[in-house]
């Protein structure tokens, strides 16, 4: 939002020595963030006043003139297309190098053979109106060579305010509201808003209370048109509706002062009537709307019918529904309440009479309508913050006062219609000053607190003891301020956050509960990155059908976003694998071999165990944290390396001699090569999977590397690991081991684990079993493989003799022959 410093000065006398920067800093410290300062004069840099000395017909073009203009420092030849240019005129000249408010950059040019060193400007080119009929002829106050900004007396500075920092403040999207803040911050008097109405307008307002006072509607002209009929069908959605007919208006271009102010706050001037409604909105915050009275015989405020259509002022057709509130003539829609007017009843140059609307619409309805239509307007952003219901009558008076100035011959016809369903009650809050001191950490004297509140428009009624009873002003009471905490904030922000001394809380020393899961996560991250040289990836939680399809993953059961940002990210991931495969793809050209890991959540369409809302039995959807790993290699299949990495990880986490089991899975992941896929078993429980990426997936994704992936349920893993006893020291063996190397030839289908378990369970003297070679090939019969082990035999009681070991070995060989048809292989 743009706020004009000059405009603020209408309401509060900011001393001359206070700079715009100081005003901005004060607002930022106490009220809202000022993001920038724009000097209006800068808009006209390189634009100067010049005198046209000659204006001759262009030798090669009928419509152009070749002029000579005195700009003080030089006499410039300028080619000009305007019909009204003539010698003797004082004009605005944009010099070479100027960038005009409409974005036009002035360069030296040659037009049909004649040199041109600048441009004589029309109003629209200077952003001062939409007149492009001819050049702007300046009045007799203009001096040759003077900067155009100085001629305009444009010394205004515009404050750019961050709208987000006032989203809770319905009272601040206007100059009067911010002037009130400045008056409170600088302790300066604020002019009453009704000082800006002349007595006539005040009488009109009093006419409102005609029924109460019994007074005659003195201001209504003789022979006024018949009374306008206004009906509000939705009292909740439209708590207040004011309408007034004004005749004898002349629609024309606004006067300079009006245009200048609107331009300063970033509005395009349109015509005097529309400009005045906008002016009042930026003045006091109340959106107004003016209808062409000839197009409006009656006003009915009602909900839209399903699929009802209205063409809005921006010349677009809008389709509405029953959640949208409309201003209608009983049948046809005239305007979308609080959002935008309709085209049909728009003010046009032919308009002779207007109906002015000043209303209060319910915030949520305006917001929903504006959201659904994608139509955010200056009006809707104000209404959606819950405006003060007292404001419409002030705005009407202000509008009339200004209209009298702009259109002196206007006549008010009929009296002001005011359908008021607001409760005119004053809300109040009780504040205990002891509580306030406790809350802030410092005493704020009663006088200081009261003064701050009163400057902001709160009425302080001194209560008993340390209590203050405070009436909330109507412009703060709609939503923004309701409790003592809100009052504390008002006092604190004006007292100054920087004036509160800091003080650490006096708390009992208590060691925090340790988050074991997170501690484990950090430990694993360090092992994987620092020991196994993997890189930590953070992939998006969203995936798409195409990518999953290429990996062979069924995407139908994936949760979907209702409003995805792009086609690339429509589904919630159920695995970290797709993201990690993506990491391989995007890096395969950058490195020969590499690996990534990721900790991340995955999401399922099933109820989880966390609560959803106030009902303790409600549940949100199931999600779990996973650990994913990927290795990519140019030469060697990384499947074995990845299994080794996982075994190593658990040895680090559990015990140095811990054994991770890899078994054939019951269900293969869709992306896995079935011949190289295993489930990971820790303490008898399946915790994840390791597999080679399928050739099909690699072809689909155009991956050049050999790839292996692993995925583990980290949430469960953390639980299992926390239940593991601490690994304790084991006495080194007292007697030596006898090591025998044995290779068994078995059927391909018999897994390593099966054979190994059988050996381990065979005799307690078998202490260590280490696989050192696997072979299958031409030297063995088809369908057979050989597994070669170092077997360590050891007793805790004595040194074993070779004979003793031979005997065990013999029995073992016989046992395995019986169990697996295993045969001993000679080396």
């Amino acid at each position: 939002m743009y706020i004009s410093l000059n405009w603020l000065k209408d309401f509060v006398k900011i001393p001359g020595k206070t700079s715009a920067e100081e005003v901005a800093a004060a607002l930022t410290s106490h009220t809202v963030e000022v993001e920038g300062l724009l000097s209006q004069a800068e808009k006209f840099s390189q634009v100067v006043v010049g005198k046209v000395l000659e204006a001759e017909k262009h030798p090669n073009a009928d419509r152009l003139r070749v002029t000579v203009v005195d700009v003080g420092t030089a006499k410039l030849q300028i080619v000009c297309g305007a019909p009204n240019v003539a010698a003797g005129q004082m004009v605005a000249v944009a010099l070479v190098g100027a960038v005009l408010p409409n974005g036009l950059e002035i360069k030296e040019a040659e037009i049909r053979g004649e040199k041109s060193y600048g441009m004589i400007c029309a109003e629209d080119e200077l952003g001062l109106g939409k007149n492009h009929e001819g050049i702007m002829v300046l009045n007799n106050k203009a001096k040759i060579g003077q900067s155009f900004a100085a001629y305009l007396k444009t010394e205004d500075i515009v404050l750019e305010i961050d709208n987000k920092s006032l989203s809770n403040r319905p009272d601040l999207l206007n100059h009067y509201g911010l002037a009130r803040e400045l008056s409170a911050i600088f302790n300066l008097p604020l002019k009453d808003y009704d000082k800006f109405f002349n007595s006539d307008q005040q009488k009109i307002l009093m006419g409102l209370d005609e029924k109460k006072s019994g007074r005659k509607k003195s201001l209504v002209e003789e022979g006024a048109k018949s009374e306008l009929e206004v009906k509000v069908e939705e009292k909740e959605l439209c708590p207040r509706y004011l309408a007034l007919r004004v005749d004898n208006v002349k629609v024309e271009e606004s006067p300079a002062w009006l245009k200048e102010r609107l331009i300063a706050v970033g509005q395009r001037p349109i015509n005097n009537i529309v400009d005045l409604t906008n002016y009042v909105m930026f003045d006091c915050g109340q959106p107004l709307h003016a209808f062409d009275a000839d197009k409006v015989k009656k006003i009915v405020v009602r909900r839209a019918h399903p699929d009802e259509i209205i063409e809005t002022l921006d010349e677009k057709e809008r389709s509405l529904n029953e959640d949208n509130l409309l201003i209608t003539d009983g049948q046809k829609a005239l305007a979308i309440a609080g959002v935008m007017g309709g085209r049909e009843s728009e003010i046009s140059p032919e308009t002779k009479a207007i109906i002015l609307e000043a209303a209060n619409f319910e915030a949520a309805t305006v917001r929903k309508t504006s959201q659904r239509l994608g139509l955010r307007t200056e009006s809707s952003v104000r209404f959606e913050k819950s405006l003060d219901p007292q404001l419409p009558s002030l705005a009407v008076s202000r509008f009339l006062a200004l209209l009298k100035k702009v259109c002196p011959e206007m006549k008010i016809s009929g009296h002001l219609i005011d359908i008021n369903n607001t409760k005119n009650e004053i809300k109040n809050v009780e504040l205990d000053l002891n509580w306030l001191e406790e809350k802030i950490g410092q005493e704020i004297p009663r006088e200081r607190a009261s003064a701050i509140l009163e400057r902001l428009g709160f009425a302080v009624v001194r209560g008993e003891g340390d209590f203050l009873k405070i009436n909330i002003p109507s412009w703060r009471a709609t939503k923004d301020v309701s409790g003592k905490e809100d009052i504390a904030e008002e006092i604190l922000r004006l007292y100054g956050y920087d004036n509160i001394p800091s003080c650490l809380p006096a708390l009992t020393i208590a060691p925090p509960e340790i988050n074991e899961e997170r501690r484990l996560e950090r430990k694993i991250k360090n092992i994987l990155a620092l020991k196994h040289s993997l890189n930590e990836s953070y992939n998006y939680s969203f995936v798409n059908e195409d990518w999953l399809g290429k990996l062979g993953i069924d995407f139908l059961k994936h949760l979907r976003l209702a409003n995805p940002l792009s086609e690339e990210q429509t589904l919630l991931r159920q695995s970290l694998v797709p993201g990690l495969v993506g990491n391989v793809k995007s890096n395969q050209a950058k490195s020969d071999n590499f690996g990534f890991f990721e900790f991340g959540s995955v999401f399922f369409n099933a109820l989880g165990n966390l609560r959803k809302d106030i009902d303790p039995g409600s549940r949100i959807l199931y999600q779990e944290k996973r650990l994913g790993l990927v290795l990519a290699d140019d030469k060697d299949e990384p499947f074995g390396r990845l299994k080794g990495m996982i075994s190593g990880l658990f040895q680090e986490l559990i015990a140095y001699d811990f054994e991770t089991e890899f078994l054939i899975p019951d269900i293969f992941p869709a992306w896995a090569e079935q011949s190289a896929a295993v489930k990971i078993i820790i303490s008898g429980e399946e915790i994840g999977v390791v597999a080679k990426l399928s050739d099909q997936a690699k072809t689909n994704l155009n991956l050049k590397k050999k790839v292996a992936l692993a995925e583990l349920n980290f949430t469960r893993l953390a639980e299992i690991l926390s239940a593991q006893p601490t690994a304790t020291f084991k006495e080194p063996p007292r007697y030596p081991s006898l090591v025998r190397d044995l290779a068994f030839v078995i059927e391909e289908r018999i897994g390593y684990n099966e054979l190994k378990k059988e050996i381990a369970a065979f005799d307690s003297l078998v202490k260590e079993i280490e696989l050192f070679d696997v072979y299958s090939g031409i030297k063995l019969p088809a369908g057979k493989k050989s597994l070669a082990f170092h077997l360590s035999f050891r007793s805790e009681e004595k040194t074993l003799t070779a004979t003793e070991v031979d005997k065990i070995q013999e029995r073992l060989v016989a046992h395995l022959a019986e169990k697996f048809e295993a045969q001993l292989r000679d080396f």
Partner: protein
Amino acid sequence: MKNKLIKLREEFLARLAEVKNSEHLRELELKYLSRKGELSEVLHGLKELSIEARREAGELANKIKGELQEKFLAISESLGQGVEKIGASDPTLPGEKFPRGHLNPITLVQNELEDLFISMGFMILDGPELESDYYNFTALNVPPSHPARDMQDTFYIDHKNKDGEYDLLMRTQTSPVQIRAMQKYGAPLRALMPGRCFRNEATDARHEHTFYQVEGLLIDKKINFANLKSLLEIVGQKLFGPDTKLRMRPKFFPFVEPGNNGEYTCFLCGGKGCRVCKNTGWLEIVGAGLVHPSVLRAGGIDPEIYSGLAFGFGLNRLAMLKYNINDVRLFNSGDLKFLEQF
């Protein structure tokens, strides 16, 4: 050709047997084995032979070359020194390369913050990334008509409740963990809640729809604004150095009252103004405030007995400042060339 090779071999071996010192050895290497040595010369002649003859001679040549190199190496080691290739005696050469892995910079910054707060008695808590509308908004004093709930800001899950409304979403902030923490642990409470958050907005160098926050919550009896200020000062000094100053500004967050943003003096220029702080001397880093009574109530805590303070940081922003990263999208890019730098 064959004969030449055999002759060369014999000659070399004979002379090698007589070698007494490294100088001698070096001479031998130059004469026979170096790039311009006799062996190379013979091998060079290979290309003039027929294909058949070339293969035969080539095999022999390679065999002899291997043998000679091996024997040369053995002698040179027995003389108590390695093969003297050019530069091999330079002890300032770099060491062997070892592979290294890398943590994401977000993890590094998050660890730093976690450690700081653990040292001050805070628990570290996690919460779900897929949240309910209730925990993400309603319980945090964001009523249904608040603009923060608009569709353009929040990713909703295409999963309607029995009233036909979308009431599940990707959390837009870590703040719902505040409510879950209060419900689980009650008061007093000290917790730090880091995590991934989502906003439905287009990405560019400065905006990312998936980002990381850290949020802190302290609830006890008589927690006040002076406490908040003091805590934030300590955090700033830990993050940006002992001379860092804090200033606080009003800022609206629905779940705190008063609501503030905290700015720290720029760590780069010390407050004088520079490119990083856009010449203001200050960096906007933290959102903070005293916990709104309705938020305490939603967490099951009586605001008449307890009060609290809360604050939050954007981890992406902290990491960008710390490491001078200019594009927020890099964090989620999985780009090795980025990750390798941390």
